[in-house]
């Protein structure tokens, strides 16, 4: 058995094992060991096959196909049943239609279609495997600590920890399968499995809101799955192939673009792009680790991963243009809406959608520069966002709230935790950090491909991004000293993964030239032929690295100054009426009044109500334009 197969199947075994163990202490050990093993396996596989890549072909493919078909039928039956039970018939219909479609294809049309390689491991898969494996296992370790607390504070929810852990392992299995499969049928199976996992994890608490949101997520993702299934059937019948690698080297003619467009729709639903974004926002009711894993670091990346794979077919075509525009609009609108949110997880959700929009836009352009940016964005976003989700979860432990407004006391509660959070936020938008480097290259790519509208949208979108991140950061550094918070200890189980994440954020910024040299350039050379180079000049890279070093060194170099230069501390200026504790002032009749400092949310400008409807209409129009273009046979 190949190591890659072991890597894929190991989480499945772990999932079953964890599901069966009911004792907390034992299960925690199993989860930790399995998570660790998954991480090691990931690193091993990546090291082993990184240089040359590998493509595997399975002799017993038919057996595997049969097992997959069988499981698919089971899943479909389950979904149809719960759909009927909860009166969400749309879910049942989607599941029934697509499974019938796939089964029909499987048993009547598939004969004679030969698959050369079922699994392909190249540099792009390596990146995805690393993200899924490393971040996934870190999140698992974190979850052990998190769930201990979760049920202490939420006694109203039924405790189903073994179910929760087992779902996460199952999800990792699906995710490994998804990024490694070259066989579209297998990929589709994993695709559906991730939808199911996300449904189960969102509905974990079983509150009416959670159930409702989980069904919305399922419906939208199954809709995408339907598009995926139709694309497979279309490709299978017209081109007699089921391989992604064969599809992507075809000429982008009309007949190719139709299934590509369908696959793009599937990718857009999974990556929560407008108008399909509502499920990701609803998904924030889930416990934080699942948000981190599914809704920021890995699952939503499956969609953009598919788009990056399809990019050669998108470059310069009408479908590519539509996708680019849709991504740009999503980026802009969601970064605006994020301004009006104060719930940390909501902000993270909107920012996730918005950043995925940027990746989608890059993939839609499909030039070598833009793909360079897209893959780098994918890497940096996964690390930083997952760090932010994890810290948000821990902050909720510490101060009993995940509202950004309440985080002004975090510096007093746990300096380390707020430090990690600041690193995460900085990673999302500040200059020498990764996201900005890739945004910069993305901008260059848009200009070079003469997409001036996208450039302008990106310019305005970046400015709004800056606004909501900085005001969050402002709350973190604001040094308020209220005394009404819950004191809570910072679990070592939580801190270790968070610390590793924070180190990864910084490290990935230092090593991005290496990532470019050994991952991006070789991968892109495979697509565009030799002559691919890093889109940034070497002098710029050096200056970036100098800036990053300055950011690391400067705060430390201030410590001796603090030590030697003690200054007189006076009360904050409140027109002379400060009571002396910086928290209250004397109001009328000499009454003490609390000072309340709020960030700006500007609902009247940037509220959801104002923007969501019209932006969804706009994005639907864009998709319809894409459909019309294809119907009209316009491919350029």
């Amino acid at each position, binding site marked *: 058995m190949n190591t890659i197969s072991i890597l894929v199947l190991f989480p499945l075994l772990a999932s079953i094992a964890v599901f069966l163990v009911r004792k907390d202490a034992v299960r925690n050990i199993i989860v930790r060991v399995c998570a660790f093993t998954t991480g090691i396996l990931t690193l091993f596989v990546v090291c082993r096959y990184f240089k040359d890549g590998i493509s595997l072909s399975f002799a017993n493919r038919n057996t595997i196909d049969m097992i997959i078909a069988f499981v698919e039928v089971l899943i479909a039956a389950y979904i149809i049943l719960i759909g009927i039970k909860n009166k969400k018939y749309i879910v049942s219909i989607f599941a029934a239609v697509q499974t019938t479609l796939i089964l029909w294809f499987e048993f009547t049309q598939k004969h004679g279609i030969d698959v050369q390689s079922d699994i392909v491991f190249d540099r792009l898969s390596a990146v995805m495997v690393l993200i899924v494996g490393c971040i996934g296992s870190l999140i698992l370790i974190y979850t052990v600590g998190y769930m201990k607390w979760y049920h202490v504070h939420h006694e109203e929810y039924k405790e189903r920890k073994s179910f929760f852990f087992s779902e996460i392992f199952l999800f990792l299995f699906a995710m490994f399968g998804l990024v490694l499969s070259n066989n579209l049928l297998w990929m589709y199976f994993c695709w559906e499995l991730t939808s199911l996992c996300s449904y189960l994890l969102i509905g974990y608490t079983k509150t009416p809101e959670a159930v409702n949101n989980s069904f919305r997520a399922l419906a939208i993702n199954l809709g995408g799955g339907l598009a995926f299934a139709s694309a497979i059937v279309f490709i299978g019948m017209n081109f007699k192939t089921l391989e992604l690698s064969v599809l992507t080297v075809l000429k982008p003619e009309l007949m190719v673009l139709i299934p590509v467009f369908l696959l793009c729709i599937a990718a857009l639903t999974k990556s929560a792009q407008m108008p399909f974004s509502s499920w990701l926002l609803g998904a924030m009711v889930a416990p934080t680790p699942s948000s981190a894993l599914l809704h920021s670091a890995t699952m939503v990346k499956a969609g953009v991963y598919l788009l990056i794979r399809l990019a050669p077919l998108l470059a310069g075509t009408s479908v590519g243009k539509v996708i680019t525009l849709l991504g740009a609009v999503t980026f802009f609108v969601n970064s605006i809406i994020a301004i009006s949110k104060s719930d940390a997880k909501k902000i993270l959700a909107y920012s996730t959608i918005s950043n995925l929009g940027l990746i989608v836009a890059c993939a839609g352009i499909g030039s070598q520069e833009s793909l360079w940016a897209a893959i780098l964005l994918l890497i940096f976003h996964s690390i930083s966002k997952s760090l932010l989700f994890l810290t948000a979860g821990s902050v909720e432990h510490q101060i009993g709230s995940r509202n950004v407004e309440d985080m002004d006391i975090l510096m007093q509660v746990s300096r380390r935790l707020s430090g990690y959070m600041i690193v995460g936020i900085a990673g999302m938008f500040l200059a020498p950090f990764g996201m900005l480097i890739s945004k910069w290259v993305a901008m260059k790519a848009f200009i070079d491909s003469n997409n001036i509208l996208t450039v302008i949208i990106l310019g305005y979108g970046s400015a709004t991004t800056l606004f909501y991140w900085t005001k969050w950061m402002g709350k973190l550094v604001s040094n308020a000293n209220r005394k009404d918070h819950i004191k809570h200890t910072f679990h070592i189980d939580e801190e270790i993964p968070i610390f590793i994440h924070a180190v990864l954020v910084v490290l990935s910024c230092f090593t991005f030239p290496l990532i470019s040299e050994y991952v991006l350039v070789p991968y892109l050379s495979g697509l565009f032929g030799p002559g691919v180079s890093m889109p940034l000049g070497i002098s710029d890279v050096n200056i970036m690295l100098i800036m990053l070093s300055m950011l690391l060194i400067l705060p430390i170099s201030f410590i001796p100054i603090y030590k030697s230069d003690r200054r007189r501390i*006076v*009360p904050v*200026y409140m*027109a*002379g*009426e*400060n009571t002396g504790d910086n928290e209250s002032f*004397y109001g009328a009749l*000499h009454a003490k009044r609390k000072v309340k400092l709020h960030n700006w949310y500007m609902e009247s400008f940037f509220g959801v109500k104002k923007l969501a409807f019209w932006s969804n209409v706009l994005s639907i129009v864009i998709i319809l334009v894409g459909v019309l273009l294809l119907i009209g046979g316009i491919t350029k």
Partner: protein
Amino acid sequence: MNFSKKSPWILHYDGSSCNGCDIEVLACLTPLYDVERFGVINTGNPKHADILLITGSINEQNKSVVKQLYEQMANPKVVVAVGICAATGGIFSECYNVLGGVDRIIPVDVYVPGCAARPEAIIDGVVKALGILEERQKFARKKA
């Protein structure tokens, strides 16, 4: 070199008063007197100010305010009491809640007489205060 003389920044506070001196203080900023010639700026913020310019008397309500504003000023600093109310409580000194002049709660360096004090007198007072400010600056540096 000592630069405190060249750039005196003023915080103006008005206690219990008829606002007469208040208006005269602002008159100093108008084109006719133009105290900005001497680098004077009306900052409105104790943390930036060098000179605390008080008009009007001190009462129960504002004593803590004046104390706090004085505390919030960076050294070296001087206090100028403008007008008779700031000096002694003036016409208000008999009121039930008035404590008297500014010097009841914080040390005053320069008293500017008048009811209301004329702008020329106020400018004179500020210039005098600058001399004291310079002395304090020298003293502070010797100590350091």
